[in-house]
Structures are given as C-alpha cells and as structure tokens.
C-alpha cells in the first residue's frame, strides 16, 4: 500500500484509541471525585492533566481548575490536540483521506461519530450526565473497532491500523498507571515503600478507592477481580496492567499485538527482527514477556513506566522511519 495511506491508517488507530482512553479517564475521575470527598477537586483534575501531559497548555488557556473547564478542555477544545473533538476530527480526516482504502462502513462510522460530536457541548454533557456522554464515546470507539474487525481485509491497512491502536493503548495504560501511582503513593515510589505497603495491607480508604479508579479507567476492574481474589494492592494492579498477557489493555498484551502486526507487515516468520521497527517492538515485548513484578519494583515503578513510554515513542518513530515516510 502507499506509505501515505499506511500513515493515515496507523493514525486512525492511534486517534480513536486516544479518544477512548481520554473518555475513560475523565469518566472515572469524574465519578471517583463524586464518591470521594476526601480527594480535593483540584487534585482530582490536576492528575488528569498530568496523565495527558497537558498541564501547561491548560494553565495557559484556563484560569480555574474546575469541572466545566476541564470538561471543555478534554472534550471540546479543538486547540487541545488531544481533546475528544480533536482526536475524532483527526481520525475522520485521516479516514476521509483513505476512504477508498478502508471499508465504507468504517468511514461512515467515524463520520457519524464526528457529526454526532458536533451536537454536544459542555452544557449538554452536564445536563444529560457526563457518564452518558462518555459511554457514548466509548461505544462509538467500540463500534468503529468492531466494524473494522468485521469489514476490513486482513492485510497491511488493518495491520497498520492495529499497530497504531495497540501502541497507543500500551502508552495510555502506562501513563495512567504512572500518574495515578504517583498521586496515590506520592512518597512510596521506591521498592521499599511498596514492600511496606504490602506488609501493612492495602492503604486507607482513599487509596483503596484510588486503585479501583485506576482499574476502572482502563476497563480492568472486572478482569482484575477474576484474576486476583485476594483484593486490590498497588503491586497487583501494576502487575495486572503491565504484565498480564490476557488483559486486552495491559502493556504486555498491547505491545505483543504491535509485534504481531509488524511481523505480518514485514512478512517475517523468524524470531529475529528484519528492521528497526521490528527490533524496537520485539525488544520491549520480550522484556515484558520475561520480567516479573519484582523486577519492576526493583527498578522502581515510575522509572520502569517512564522507560516504557519512551520505548513507545521509539517504536512509533521506527515504524514511521521504516514504512510511513518514503
């Protein structure tokens, strides 16, 4: 396929995943805040800004850190390149540019999503209920992905799309965990701290509640419960979200999917990489395959997650280098 088209397919995957991740995160934080008066309004929102790495941009554009502004900034502000409106508009623009390459159903789905988005604004979201709005966003994302699975030929377009989608998902899961961990255990980011926490059991009410929110924000709560029956601890949450091979949003699973996409794109049946992109993703995937929760804690969760996010950037660069620019 044309390199330019592959680039668009890759970014459709990324933007749609990013929109969904953003919606999930705000949804959970919004409701987490409602149930938990102990967490101040400001802390709640500032952690979202930290996850998306947009605190500076926000501060430059809005005076107050409140619900209305935050909702506007993350959902509707087209000057925020990571807002839902921006992600959906970019995804649609990319889809429009390759509507001959993707299926008509895919184009129609993202176009309807985009048109639907224009009927919402902050006032409407607050009036109808934010949860309804964010559920709609998630459902549109799932609809698009389901349509993609059902209608798009197995082949390069699909593999580039999926590579974008799963790379974004790995990155978003790592980010959420990193920031929430920092929020929830500000002084315990060292190995010893984790052990202390484990030793005394789960922290206070706030923390327990906080870790549940992390799980919910990536749609992992029920899956986590089915996997661990002993209760929520930071170590288990980290282990689940990073290393679980079966959970669809874990870093390991997501990177494994990217690895599979690149192997198919490169028609590579060998265990060894053919090009820089395969090497970058394979390196991270193998590390995740072979490491344990203890290894991560030894390295320091933040240090490890930071490294994962950097690797995700390198993988993206390598894919662009190998396939998307000519």
């Amino acid at each position: 396929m044309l390199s330019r088209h592959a680039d668009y397919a890759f970014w459709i995957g990324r933007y749609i995943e990013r929109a969904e991740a953003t919606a999930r995160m705000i949804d959970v934080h919004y409701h987490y805040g409602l149930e938990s008066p102990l967490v101040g309004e400001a802390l709640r929102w500032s952690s979202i800004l930290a996850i998306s790495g947009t605190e500076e941009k926000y501060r430059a554009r809005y005076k107050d850190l409140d619900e209305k502004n935050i909702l506007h900034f993350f959902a509707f502000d087209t000057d925020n390149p990571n807002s839902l409106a921006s992600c959906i508009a970019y995804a649609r623009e990319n889809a429009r540019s390759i509507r001959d390459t993707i299926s008509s159903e895919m184009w129609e789905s993202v176009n309807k999503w985009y048109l639907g988005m224009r009927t919402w604004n902050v006032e409407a979201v607050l009036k109808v209920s934010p949860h309804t709005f964010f559920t709609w966003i998630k459902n549109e994302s799932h609809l698009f992905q389901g349509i993609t699975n059902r209608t798009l030929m197995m082949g390069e377009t699909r593999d580039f799309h999926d590579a974008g989608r799963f790379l974004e998902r790995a990155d978003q899961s790592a980010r959420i965990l990193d920031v929430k961990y920092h929020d929830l255990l500000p002084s315990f980011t060292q190995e010893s701290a984790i052990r202390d926490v484990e030793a005394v059991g789960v922290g206070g009410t706030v923390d327990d509640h906080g870790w549940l929110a992390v799980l919910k924000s990536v749609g992992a709560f029920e899956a986590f419960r089915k996997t661990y029956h002993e209760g929520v601890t930071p170590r288990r949450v980290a282990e689940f979200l990073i290393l679980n091979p079966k959970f669809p949003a874990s870093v390991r699973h997501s990177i494994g999917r990217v690895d599979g996409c690149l192997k198919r794109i490169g028609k590579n049946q060998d265990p060894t990489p053919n090009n820089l992109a395969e090497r970058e993703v394979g390196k991270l995937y193998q590390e995740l395959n072979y490491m344990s929760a203890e290894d991560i804690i030894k390295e320091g969760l933040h240090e490890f997650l930071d490294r994962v996010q950097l690797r995700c950037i390198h993988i993206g660069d390598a894919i662009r280098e190998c396939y998307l620019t000519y």
Partner: protein
Amino acid sequence: MNLASSTGLFRGYEREGFFDEMIGLNGEPRSFCRQLFETLDAMSPEDFQARRELADLTLMNQGITFTVYGHEAGIEKPFPVDLVPRVIQSEEWTHLERGLTQRVTALNLFLHDVYHEGKILSDGIIPRDLVVNAPNYRREFVGANPPGGIYIHVCGTDLIRDGDGVYRVLEDNCRTPSGVSYMLENRMILMRVFPSLFRQHRIRPIDDYTSILLANLRSIRPGRSANPTVAVLTPGVYNSAYFEHSFLAQQMGVELVEGRDLFVEDNQVFMKTTRGAKRVDVIYRRVDDDFLDPLVFRQDSLLGVPGLVNAYRAGNVSLANGIGTGIADDKVIYAYVPDMIKYYLGENAIIPNVDTFLPWRESDRQHVLANLDNLVVKATNESGGYGMLIGPQATKAEIEEFRAKIEADPRGYIAQPLISLSRSPCFVEDHFEGRHVDLRPYILVGLDGVKIVPGGLTRVALRKGSYVVNSSQGGGSKDTWVLGGPLEQEQRLGDMTQRQVMNA
C-alpha cells in the same frame, strides 16, 4: 388521474408552457410515467418529507457533502437530491445512445487528426487558427500515439431538451468530467427510500459503470504488463470532487494517489508504497492538464508529478483522459462538431447542437451584439456556470459589460438563444413544482468500443425559475431512470425462486 383531478402532491402543478418530463400537454401523465405519477401523487407531504430527511441523513453520514464556505467551522451540507426520479423511455434512450456514440467517436477522430496530419484543418472544415491557437491545444502532444488512438476515455456530454422536447447537446466535457458518483449514489439513495417504486418499474441498472471503467483502463495499459497497476490521481482531499475520486478508486479497488505519492525514474512512473517503489501502468487522472507535470505545464503546480508527461509520451504509462482533450470541448469548436461528424463519419449528427453564434465571425458578431438581451453568452473556456450572461435575465450594466468583453476578445465567447429547458417535478415544501433539468450521460470509450450506462446525472436548477443547474450555483440532482425495453423482459436469474431455477 391527471393534473386536474389530483388531490395529492400534484395538486396545483402547472406546466407553465414548458416541456415537462412527466406531464403531457393535456395535463395527463405521459403513458410511461402514469404509475409513478399516481404513486407519488398519493403520498402525503409528511411521508415524502420523512423520506427526504432519511435521504439527507444517509448523505450526511456517508459524507456525500460539500463545504459551505464563509462559515468558520466549514459547515458541510449534503448535495441536494430531489427524490422524484426523471424517467426516460427505452426508445428515447436508444436514440440518445446512438447519438452520443456517434459524437464521441467523431471527437476522438478529431483529436487524433489535429494532433497528427490535421486533415480537417487543411480541408478547411475548421479554421486552423481556431484550433492551433486555442489555449487548450497542446502543441507538446503533436504526434503522440495514445493506445487505440483514444484520447477521450470518459466523456460527460450535457444534453438539454428544448421547448418541443427535442434533445440537444449543450456542451461536451472531454477533460475530467465529474458527477458520475452522484449518478450512482442517487440510485442507491432512491432504492433505499423508495424500494416500492423499483418493484413497480423495470429500471435498467447502472451499477456496472465502475466495472466498465476499470476494464477500459486496464485495456489501455502499455504493452508489457498482464496485470497492470491502475491508479486514480486526485488533487487531494480538499478538491471539491474528492468524494468522487475516492468513490471511484474504492469501487474499482485501485489505489487513490496524489502527485506526491508518485515519482518518475527512467521515464517510468512509480508509486511510493510501504514495500518500496511500485510501477504504475495506467492513471485515471482527475487533475487538469495544467497541473499534471510542473516540468511541462504550470511550474507552480504541487499537484502533479515531474516527468509524468515524458513517461506518457514514451508510452510507459497510459493516461485517461489523454492530454490535450480540452481542444475538443472548447465552446467554439463545439459549434463545429456536426461538421466534424459529417467529415469523419459521413453521417448527419443524430443529436443536434444548440444553434450557436461565433462572434469571431464578422456576421455573427453583428447579430450577437445587436441581440445581447435575447441571447446566452458563454466564455469559451469557463465552466461550472461561471463567465456567463443570460441576456433575457440580465441588467443593462451586465449586458454592456459583456458587449465590451466580446468586442475585446471575440474568440473568447459564443452566444446561443436561450433554450427553455424542460422541467421535471420537484418536491418543494409540501407539494410538487416544475424545475428545469438537464442530463449528463457518462460515455466510456475503451479498446472494444463505446459503452454508456443507461441514464446519467440529471441536474436540476432548484431555485424557482432558474436555468443554472451547476451544484456551485444552487443546483441539485435526481436519479435518472431508463426504462427497460420490450426485449429485456425475460426474468433475471436472481429474481427466480429455487423451483423456477431448477425448471429453467
């Protein structure tokens, strides 16, 4: 049931002296439209409106829209489709098919001639000066030999019907005619919102358009390749016809490329793919000559491919349409097409032209300047309804402006009497009213001859009284039905039941 007895959507409908596509002089629906007339008349305005909204929603969701400029957000609106179909009888269509085939055949012969020996010029049928000094004559292509001698692979010929119902050719579009996607989409929309109408009528299908186009494109490949790579070349996503470009690429299953996706090496064209360079054999280009190759034409063009023209001349890539076809749809040359048909084919034109005055001829100029308030004046190298004077509807100032223009550049204009275009019923608010229509059939030329899918795009001037059907000027479109003839009555296999198939 007729106009007088109508109590439904046709109540109060007036022909107002125009030729009406559906209603005869006596106010009776034409025989082949009777059932359609009765079905439509019996609908309630609410029901019709609901179907219209469904159609609009479908168009919006599929992104079949155009952008209304001047709004900051770039408001997108669906291309207006009027849901009352325009119906053409089988015999009428046979006549049009013959006429259009004759015309495009002559035009291709003309192009081959003027880019080779120029016999029609030496024989004095068409003044040499009019051809070789026209802005769209491409001197660079003299002597080039496109496969099969075909220059025009896709032709969109605009037909109108005058006050007597006679079909006439208004103009030929031999460069990159657009609109065929709307023809196909209109059919899709109508089948969705009015499935019952399709069960009542035998309407000839049009869905093989892209198959024929693809087969033709493959047939003109440069000799070597058994499985040629075909691509559609678009100016890009911001072009107003982008939807059509992507639609055609999708329907044909070929790549949609922009200039930046292609490059030329050793006079061969390649596209930039994820697996490296891939040779391209045939390009259905929807980029005008001027922008095709900055090395030969406009140097500031970012849409084209440097070196493409040389690759084409070298016979390493085929282009559809060929380069230099603009001379065939020059509005001055148009006036000579009947002579052309006579000269090359020894036949009279089956579909007549509209009478045309050419101000560069002294006698015509006198007549034109004396009758500007009765004539339609068109700039020879404008399209889309721009650069046009409709004398009977123009102000004094506009008439004087065109008088000056014609005097300054007589070759740059033609004049025609105002034809009272035929009308077709359209849904307005809560009832039907007549609106003026034209018809653009799409004529496909390949190595094995000329093929025309039955019908074409019916464009309609939605503004009351307007004659301008261009979408840029408030026009819309309609589905166009060509009814099946007596020979096509055998049931198609797909319609049969299992038992019937077994007994067949």
